[in-house]
Each structure stands twice: as C-alpha cells, then as structure tokens.
C-alpha cells in the first residue's frame, strides 16, 4: 500500500466519532463572523450596524488577490462590527449578527437534489468559487479560486483530493465522504474542468475502509476519478506528503505543488465547490467534529459559520468536569483555546476536549541527541537544530537549514523523549525568518 517515505509518526487514531452521522446544529442566538477567516488580507465589511441581512448574503468583500468573500450564515440584524476575541486568542474585527428566523438569499438552491450537469465554463467556475468565498476546508483556509487558476506556463496533470484526515480524533471529512459522496464527486469534476485535468485521485487512509468502498462503488459514473487507499501515517494529509504518496513526485523546497503538475484540494473544499457552482450557495456552514474521551456523545455537526464553540460542546453532551484543554483542530496541529465562546470559522475542522489527565506536557529535559526528531521529520529537517538556532536568534542559519520548509506538523514534539518544545521554538524561528526574508525583498 502506498504512503510517503520520509519520516512520519503513528499516533493513536482515536476516531471516536467516526460512526456518528452528521447532525444539523440548531441556529444560535447570535453569530460572530470574523473578517479574517482565511489566509491573506482580511475582507472589508459591506454592511452596517442595524442592517438586516439574509443567510447567504455578502457581508464582507475580499478585495485583494489572496482574500475571500464572507457571507452571512444566518438571517437577522447586524448588531455590531467590532473587535471580538476569535480563535487566535486576540481581538479582531468581526461582524456580529442577531439571528431572526432563517431566511435565505434568493437564487440559492436549498434542495437536496443532485445536479450532475456542469454548465459553467472553467473561467466562470473560478469566478463563482471566488464570489462564493470558498477557501481550503482542511484547515489552512487558502482561498480556493487561487488554487483553481493554473499559472501561465504551467500545466496541471493531476487533481489530488485529500481525504486522508490523518489527524487523530477528527472525522468530519470521513463523514462527508460517506454522506455527501456524490456531491463531492461532482465537485471534483467541476474542479477538474476548471483546471483542465483528466485525472483526479482521492487519497484515503485505510482506516476508513467504508469510505473507500463507498466511493469505489460510485466511481463507475465518474470517469477520470480514482480512489487510492493509503497506509495510515501522520502527516499524510500534508500537501507535499500526499503528492509523494500518490504520484511519487517531490515538490521542490519553497515551491508549490503545481511545479510537479499537481493541485491538491480537500474533500470538504470539493463539496463546497459543488454547492457554490451547482447550488449557488456560498460557504456559510461546515462539518465540525466535536470529540474527546470525556464527552458523552462525540459527534459531527453541520454548523453555520460564526456559531460559538460553546454551543457545539453543549450539543455534544456538555463540557465534562475534568476537562483540561479545549483544542481547536486536531491533537497534532490544533491550538488550544483560551475562551470557548469564540466562533466557528471556515477553517474549524474539529473541537477536541482533552481530559485533565491527558493534557499536561511532559516535563522538559535536556536534549539527549537521540536524533528521533530528525528521523521522523517528514520534510527531512533537523528539528533539534532548528529549535536551538531559533532560540539563539540565529535566523540566518535557520534559513540555511530550510526552516521555511517546516510544515508545523508537530511530529517532532510528539516523538521527543525529553519533552522539548521543539515545534514552539521552530514556529518563532519561522516567523522571524519569514520577516527577514520579506525585509530583503523590500
């Protein structure tokens, strides 16, 4: 079975919520929609305080090239446009909407009928995806329309669909592949048309045999798309790792996948593209896994963007008393929250509740030079070295050691027997090195 060769770890999978069907979460009283939920420039609000909005209405426009439109996820009145604490832990601009009823913008098809015929041209598809504010749903939230445009002089050969979901605990993509498979496949066809590629490969780790089987059955009607089971290994969902695993090509350091003729999209993105193109529906909701060993009912919810995370936890049986940490995302790459009243954003793939006993970090000891971090680093870096260089502010050396190639998967932190905060230090190093590189181009 295929997988990537270099490094990788295998943390316990703990997919507690994998058999929980996607439930629609009831509407909250108010939603808080941050203006920066995507990678790139924050969107500019186009509504004012007191305006009444409908679900699906454009409320903030992404004006830069790398930015995304934001739509209201509910119908109601705009209460305020103000700084609100978001998942970053800082206060950032957001639009707060009081929910009144559930009225949708005209022209949005809310029926469940599957529309297979693709009528739009590639150009129209890209502009529709842009208009409807679709971003990468895997968590990085990179504006999707940018990824659907092939730069001049390059050709895309493969569309790679990421159904790996290598993060332990998370099951939102898994459930989507089971429950919205056909919609997702049409979405993939739309993306194939936009990119003008003949082949699409869906990579799925073989801890989801039901999804693999289900998709394979449907594939006869969708030529050009294939499903490839992959050996379970973290971080297989990383773009570069997935390309290596599926088509055995290596993306050069500092380059994009298009260099090797690949474009990678998440299954959630394909579904969102389907809804945007076929149903005219903007990205206003997403599937979020709420899970944890102490939770009564680990679940998968279809949640409107802007719903407070506290509501999700409540719907999954309430916060267990001995909760130690609430993590936004998976256990490997997620970030713990300092406040659970922050809203769900386009990039929220899961909410993970750790028990007190599971959370604390190991005590930090000296590096014993075992080299495990270097042997498991999926990018072939030397995390111990990068961490030391970064903590001594030697950012030029960091650059030379290719710190910018780090995908922040956290495998080094996971494997380190001395409990050293390797990733933390590397992240600072990446930040500072990035600044250094940018200052050179000015």
């Amino acid at each position, binding site marked *: 079975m295929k997988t990537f060769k270099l490094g990788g770890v295998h943390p316990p999978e703990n997919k507690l919520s994998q058999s929980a069907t996607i439930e629609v979460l009831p509407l909250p009283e108010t939603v808080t929609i941050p203006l920066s939920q995507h990678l790139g420039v924050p969107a500019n609000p186009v509504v004012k305080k007191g305006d009444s909005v409908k679900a699906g209405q454009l409320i903030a426009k992404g004006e830069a090239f790398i930015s995304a439109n934001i739509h209201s996820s509910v119908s109601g009145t705009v209460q305020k446009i103000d700084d609100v604490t978001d998942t970053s832990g800082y206060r950032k601009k957001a639009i707060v909407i009081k929910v009144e009823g559930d009225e949708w913008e005209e022209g949005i098809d809310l029926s469940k009928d599957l529309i297979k015929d693709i009528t739009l041209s590639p150009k129209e598809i890209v502009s529709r995806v842009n208009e409807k504010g679709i971003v990468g749903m895997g968590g990085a939230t990179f504006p999707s329309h940018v990824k659907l445009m092939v730069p001049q002089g390059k050709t895309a050969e493969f569309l790679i669909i990421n159904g790996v979901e290598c993060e332990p605990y998370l099951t939102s993509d898994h459930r989507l592949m089971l429950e919205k498979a056909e919609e997702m496949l049409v979405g993939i066809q739309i993306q194939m048309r936009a990119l003008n590629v003949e082949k699409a490969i869906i990579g799925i780790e073989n801890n989801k045999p039901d999804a693999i089987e289900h998709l394979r059955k449907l594939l006869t009607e969708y030529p050009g798309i294939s499903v490839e089971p992959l050996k379970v290994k973290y971080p297989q969902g990383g773009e570069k790792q997935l390309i290596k695993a599926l088509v055995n090509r290596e993306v050069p350091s500092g380059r994009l996948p298009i260099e090797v003729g690949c474009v990678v999209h998440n299954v959630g993105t394909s579904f969102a593209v389907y809804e945007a193109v076929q149903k005219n529906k903007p990205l206003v909701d997403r599937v979020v896994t709420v899970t944890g060993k102490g939770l009564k009912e680990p679940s998968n919810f279809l949640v409107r963007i802007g719903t407070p995370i506290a509501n999700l936890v409540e719907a999954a049986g309430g916060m267990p008393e001995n909760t130690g940490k609430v993590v936004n995302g998976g256990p490997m790459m997620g970030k713990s929250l*300092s406040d659970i009243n922050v809203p769900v954003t386009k990039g929220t793939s899961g909410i993970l509740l750790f028990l007190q006993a599971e959370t604390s*970090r190991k005590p930090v000891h000296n590096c014993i030079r075992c080299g495990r971090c270097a042997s498991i680093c999926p990018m072939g870096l030397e995390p111990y070295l990068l961490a030391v260089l970064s903590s001594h502010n030697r950012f030029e050396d960091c650059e030379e050691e290719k710190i910018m190639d780090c995908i922040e998967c956290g495998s080094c932190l996971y494997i380190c027997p001395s409990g050293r905060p390797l990733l933390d230090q590397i992240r*600072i190093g990446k930040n500072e090195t990035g600044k250094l590189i940018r200052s050179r181009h000015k």
Partner: protein
Amino acid sequence: MNEITLISVISLGSLGTIAAIVLYMVAQKFKVIEDPRIDIVADKLPGANCGGCGYAGCRALAEEIVRKESLDGMNCPPGGNEVIAEIASVLGLEATEQDPTIAVVRCSGSRENAPPKVKYEGDMTCAFAHSLFAGEGGCPNGCLGYGDCVVSCDFDAMYMEEETGLPVVKDNCVSCGACVKACPRRIIEIRKRGKKDRRIFVSCINVEKGGVARKNCKVACIGCGKCVKECKFDAIVMENNIAYIDYNKCTLCRKCPPVCPTNAIHELNFPPRKPRPETKNEPAKA
C-alpha cells in the same frame, strides 16, 4: 664544536634573517594606519558591548566618535556622562550633558490585578506565547510574565517578582535597551531617571476601550482623560485610549496620580504623601 652544529646554526640563522626581512617589508607595505585615538577612546568606554549607544559595540562607538570628531548625539548609557566627559577631555571636544535614563516596565497586570484565566503550557518564552494568545490574564498588550526581558539583560538589572509575576528593574539598570527589544509587546520603555530618581509614568500600554480593558485588568488605563485635564504642563497626551506622560515636559508635580480612577499612573521614589483631607462631595447614600 662539531661541523653539524655549525652548519645548522648558520643555515637556520640566515633563513630566519631572510624571513624576518621579508616579513618586515610586507608589514610595511600593507600597514593599516589606524588613528591611535581610537584605542584611547575604546579604553575609556566600559567595554560592555551592550549596544545601548546604537552601535555594534564599544569599539564601533569609539571609531565613530573619532571619525566624526564630535560627541553630538553620542552617549554611553552604562558609562553615563562621566565617561563621555572623560572622552571629551582626551579628544579636546565638547561634551553634551545628557539626562541619565532607566528602563521602565509599563504594566501592572500582576496576578492580583489581572487574574489568570487560563494556564499556558507551551515554550516558556514571551516571544512564543505572544504569537499564540493574549496571555493568561487576557490582556493583549499586557506583560506575559515569562521573562524574556530578564534573560536579555546583561547587567543583572532585572528580575521577575515571584508574587506579581512582573519584571522589576533594579537601580543598576544602565538603560542599554536590550529588554526593550526583547519584549514582544514593547512594554518596557527607556525613560529619564528624573531628579533624585523620581519618576511618574502611566503603567499601562493597553489600547483597548476602557470597558474591555477593565474586564481583564483592574489597573488598566481606561482612557478617561482625567489626567490630561489635570496636567498644567501639557505633558500628558491621550492617543488610542491610552495616556502617555512625556518625560521631557513632566515636572514631577505629582498632580496626576491621585486623579487616575484606576491607579494606572505610578510614582516612584517620592516621599509618602500627606494623608488627604476627606473629599467633600462624597456620593450620597441612595
């Protein structure tokens, strides 16, 4: 004396002489002429290489002083005015007196004033914590308390106070500015030491609106502007919901600290105030 000794002495001796002549000629040819005053000035400087003067180290400052032949704008924070005066007398230049300065921590978000709401477990450096979240107390501008400034101090002039979790600047601070650069939130400022080491400053840099700031911290500046009205010397400016006392204009009159409703204005090293007479207009009981 046998022959072998004689031969070796003569051959090695002449070889050495030739080498010496060659080396001498090369040394003359490639001689680097350096102003001898640079060495003299560098000797006068403290040799701490702290970078507080804005140059790469003490020698770099010495080179610059000699090159410019003036002491305008040159200062040596650890050496102070004496060192500059000494250099001036050696070089026959005029020294400009500069007010002694010291680092000031502009945050009072102690554990008591800004109680921690969450517990941080990552890498115990301010730089990383700053990139992750607003801080255990919740103030996005306040001191994180992991001591990057203390680590950066080469003069042992700072320590973290156990009780409050805030850094404290000791009197031996030379105001080199290393801590200013180390603090990711720019809380520390280099200010005038003031007469008799007396200083008045706003111990808060939080730019959020009053209500929000107060929620996180009892002693936050809420931007009410009372101190601005009280100040007769126009020394206090209000910008971005935060008051700032200009130390060049401040006369240390001590009028502003009592009017601050949140006690955000601190006065240091003053004699204790006389107990104030009871204020007349106390709010009547409802």
